[in-house]
């Protein structure tokens, strides 16, 4: 078991009321496991069914394993340009 910090941005930071959250993860936890934890947070009810996660500044797949110390971010729909 270890604790990870998830960075939050833009509309998701507003929904969850913070720019970062700390969550406990079991060893071998995947991106999907992390999303289950995130959905249980207050304010998370309005997140889409499959929000995008970035691990170490790259978009992650749902079955990707999260390692202790990974840089993790929840990415709202992008709107650059």
């Amino acid at each position, binding site marked *: 078991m270890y604790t990870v910090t998830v960075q939050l941005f833009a*509309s998701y930071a*507003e929904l969850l009321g913070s720019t970062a959250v700390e969550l406990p993860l079991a060893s071998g936890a995947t991106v999907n496991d992390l999303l289950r934890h995130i959905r249980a947070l207050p304010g998370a009810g309005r997140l889409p069914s499959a929000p995008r996660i*970035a691990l170490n500044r*790259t978009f992650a797949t749902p079955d990707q394993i999260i390692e202790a110390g990974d840089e993790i971010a929840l990415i*709202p*729909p*992008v*709107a*650059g*340009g």
Partner: protein
Amino acid sequence: MSRASIVTREIDLARLVEAVRSPSHGAISIFVGTVRDLNDGRSVSAIEYSAYTAMAQEELERIADESEKRFGVSAVVIEHRIGVLDISETSIAIVAAHPHRAPAMDTTRYIIEEIKKRVPIWKMEHYSDGTREWVDPTRVAKQTSPA
């Protein structure tokens, strides 16, 4: 200068063009994105851009790498500005150079389309009536056809 940057100052287009100019390049293609005063029927007074800057810069670099492999361009610079921008201000500039025009033009088109899909930058529109809203292109796409 860095090839891909998120900046908080005005974008200096002339400087970007000089960065890619070279004797072997016969074409320099430029895409400039500016802040529009109307979106989805609502009068916009400003746009506030924010970013996950560390990832956005890396993603821009990855897109620049892809465009070099895909179109053979050897000189690309991208700047995206964040912060509060007024109507008509430049939010993004993409400049690509190649010996010939077609690859240069294909490159700027490819890069802006990829940025819109995958670079972690967000915009909050400020409307003339004083309200503000996050722009969600995935939601707009379901309601209206693209321009």
